[in-house]
């Protein structure tokens, strides 16, 4: 005879249409009381066949689709593909183009980290306020993107050999003004959040990711650096012109949600340093090399030699890799993307076990996923 005090496990499904799951993502959680004992991520609801489409269009034709991977960081995605194509086809890059690219992707990093911090606070229950402060600042960067590329989010701007078109007149001044004013916003944002006792209670010692597990599961990006592992593809590979700038790689120590939040804040400050240097040193000249220009005008004249490349960048969410196989035709034979959000999601269960449902929500928020990239 069961007594009424006996408990049983309860399985609940969070998502796929749930405001806290950042898109169409589903978590099947098994609960003991309110504690999570098992959690299974379910994805694929936003699968759009991106890789297959990429194999059926020219190399240039894939760029607008990369915008839609991680739709917060279109510029970084563009850069990732551009670097892979450059490696495959041996395309030189115009000097000014290099600087413009760095400026764009670092602005993207600032934008992404600002927005994700807002979302994280939203998940914690601070509805609206931090998110709208974040979006207010994000909008300024998006205005710059629109002025340069013609679109706020779907930029489609970076091309092999440089960028599609030089920035309009006065753009660099606007960018300098924004970069100069941004630390002020970060200070204010931190005054709002960093020392807030409620936030500390909610995030410290929650969702700890052990260092060894993070490395073994090939976690990258702020999630990895929050555990204290010094690994940043910008430093490790030194791709593009990153070795010319001086900046630090902020590291966490505990690997909890708070560390992830704080690493992102610090990373924004370092990105602003890179931006200052890049905006100071940017040379005049063409923004795209002749070979790149020819490729934009006539995408199908680009037939890279047979072979395969893997090229990676440090996207705001982690290591974003593009794998291309060429069979000598104007279309890639194989086109694969290593999506950081997807790989980082694999440790979700390990981080959530033993915590409450409300913690699982902020742990998911602290990973920083975008479903467009997870499902591709």
């Amino acid at each position, binding site marked *: 005879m069961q007594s009424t005090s006996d408990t049983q496990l309860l399985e609940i499904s969070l998502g796929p249409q749930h405001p806290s799951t950042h898109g169409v993502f589903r978590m099947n959680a098994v609960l003991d009381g309110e504690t999570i004992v098992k959690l299974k991520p379910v994805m694929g609801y936003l699968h759009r066949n991106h890789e297959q489409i990429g194999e059926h269009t020219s190399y240039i034709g894939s760029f607008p689709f990369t915008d839609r991977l991680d739709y917060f960081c279109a510029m970084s995605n563009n850069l990732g593909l551009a670097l892979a194509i450059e490696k495959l086809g041996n395309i030189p890059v115009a000097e000014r183009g290099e600087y413009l690219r760095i400026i764009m992707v670092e602005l993207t990093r600032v934008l992404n980290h600002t927005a994700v911090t807002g979302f994280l606070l939203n998940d914690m229950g601070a509805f609206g306020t931090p998110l709208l402060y974040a979006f207010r600042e994000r909008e300024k960067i998006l205005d710059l993107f629109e002025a340069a590329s013609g679109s706020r989010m*779907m930029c489609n701007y970076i091309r092999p050999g440089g960028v599609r078109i030089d920035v309009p007149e006065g753009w660099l001044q606007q960018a300098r003004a924004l970069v100069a004013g941004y630390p002020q916003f970060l200070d204010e944002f931190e005054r709002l959040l960093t020392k807030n006792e409620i936030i500390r209670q909610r995030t410290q010692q929650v969702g700890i990711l052990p260092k060894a597990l993070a490395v073994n599961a090939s976690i990258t990006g702020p999630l990895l650096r929050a555990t204290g592992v010094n690994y940043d593809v910008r430093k490790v590979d030194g791709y593009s012109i990153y070795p010319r700038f001086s900046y630090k790689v902020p590291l966490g120590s505990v690997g909890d949600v708070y560390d992830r939040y704080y690493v992102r804040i610090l990373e924004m400050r370092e990105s602003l340093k890179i931006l200052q240097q890049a905006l100071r040193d940017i040379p005049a000249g063409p923004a795209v090399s002749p070979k790149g220009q020819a490729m934009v005008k006539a995408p199908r004249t680009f037939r890279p030699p047979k072979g395969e490349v893997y090229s990676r960048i440090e996207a705001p969410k982690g290591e974003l890799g593009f794998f291309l196989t060429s069979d000598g035709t104007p279309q890639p034979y194989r086109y694969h993307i290593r999506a950081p959000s997807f790989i980082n999601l694999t440790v979700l269960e390990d981080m959530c076990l033993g915590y409450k449902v409300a913690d699982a929500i902020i742990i998911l928020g602290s990973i920083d996923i975008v479903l467009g990239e997870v499902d591709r």
Partner: protein
Amino acid sequence: MALIGSGVLQGLGVTLRTFIETYPWGKALLGVLRIRTGQGLVTIEYPDVRQQHHERQRIFPFLVYDGAPDNLRCVSCKICEQECPPQCIHINGPAKDEQGRPAKVHGRTYPVTFDINVAICMSCRICVDVCPFDAIEMDNEFELSTEERFGRLVFNKARLLKSNEYFQQIKPTEAAEVDARLAAKAKPSPKPAAPAPAAGPTAAPAA
């Protein structure tokens, strides 16, 4: 650590200040108190107030004509149709006369129909980049919602045709560049049709 709760209070101070400074009197008050203010109100009341968009803003392509609508620049070469990544351009042409030879208006061939399905178009601008004749350009009109999904979201040739003056008006910088390029092309060769540049699938690989 300081007083428990001081972090929360500091944060509340930020929200209070941000709230006050959205009012003109609030900004003045904060000025008197020598408190640094942010930008105040950042939202606008659309549609009464409209945001000024940058001229590079791109929302769906249109076809350019010079002078009269039958003098369109498009020669129906179909490069854009082929290069459009989501394949949303559908061209019927070039137009033929009774003997089956290409019909010409103003010395150029022209498409019989030219449809762009804007429900699929993602405003990527690749068609503009690849067009060798500067015949297609990006619009910036964004109030396009309709109640009809299939009829009005496929833009036909008549809907797509817009004058060069319109282009000059919405995108002065870009239009000036295009005009200069076309003028330079027209001068040295008095031949009617501009020679097709090396493009398309049959072209030789890039050097």
